[in-house]
């Protein structure tokens, strides 16, 4: 039964031509001149290009405004525009091997996409920050040092034992 399911899964992965589908991740930077309200339409444009290359979206993250680590420039209208901020987002998708190249070429033509990157990845979530966040907090130097609580010593109550009882218990132990 399990084999059957596995077989059908494999069959689904294969294209009509026999080319195997792969999981890719497209990350992009949208120029900050785009208004926040228009971001959705920008993402829709990317998805439309993705649909053209027969890609199916697995997971995605909406573009967020980030400060770039260095200045980037993009040629617009015969001159270079410099940017220090951008909207960063990503889409994980499944497509036939090689179609990602076509997607990259199409995205480069866009005026609103500052930069894009397509990588091969896996279907599962690869972000580890969320999973190990509590551990990170405790190890990062910026985190507040953990205060040591004073240890309260609880004095154990000694139960008085008679000599007869002691001898009896020792004898029992010796017999065993």
């Amino acid at each position: 039964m399990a084999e059957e399911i596995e077989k059908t899964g494999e069959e689904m992965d294969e294209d009509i031509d026999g080319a195997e589908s792969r999981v890719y991740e497209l990350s992009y930077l949208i120029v900050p001149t785009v208004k926040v309200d228009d971001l959705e339409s920008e993402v829709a444009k990317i998805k439309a290009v993705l649909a053209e290359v027969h890609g199916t979206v697995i997971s995605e993250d909406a573009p967020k405004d980030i400060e770039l680590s260095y200045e980037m420039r993009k040629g617009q209208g015969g001159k270079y525009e410099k940017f220090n901020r951008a909207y960063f987002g990503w889409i994980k998708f499944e497509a036939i091997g090689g179609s990602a190249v076509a997607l990259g070429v199409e995205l480069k033509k866009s005026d609103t996409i500052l930069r894009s990157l397509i990588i091969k990845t896996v279907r599962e979530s690869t972000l580890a920050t969320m999973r190990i966040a509590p551990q990170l907090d405790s190890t990062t130097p910026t985190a507040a040092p953990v205060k040591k609580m004073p240890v309260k010593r609880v004095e154990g109550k000694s139960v008085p034992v008679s000599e007869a009882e002691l001898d009896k218990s020792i004898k029992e132990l010796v017999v065993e």
Partner: protein
Amino acid sequence: MSTDYFSTHGIKFIDYKDIEILKRFLNPHGRILARKRTGLSSGHQIDLEQAVKRARFMGLLPFVSR
């Protein structure tokens, strides 16, 4: 960092978007620390390099700082 960070935390795939993790393996100039200092396995060091380079390309990490 004497032990492999990614093995101890059960991280199979080093994601270039995890910049907080990647920053742990950079020096103040933004350069990737040597394997001697990171304590990573050979494979994970290669994956780390790949992830840092991708993050740099996307402007998430600097090529040089200070």
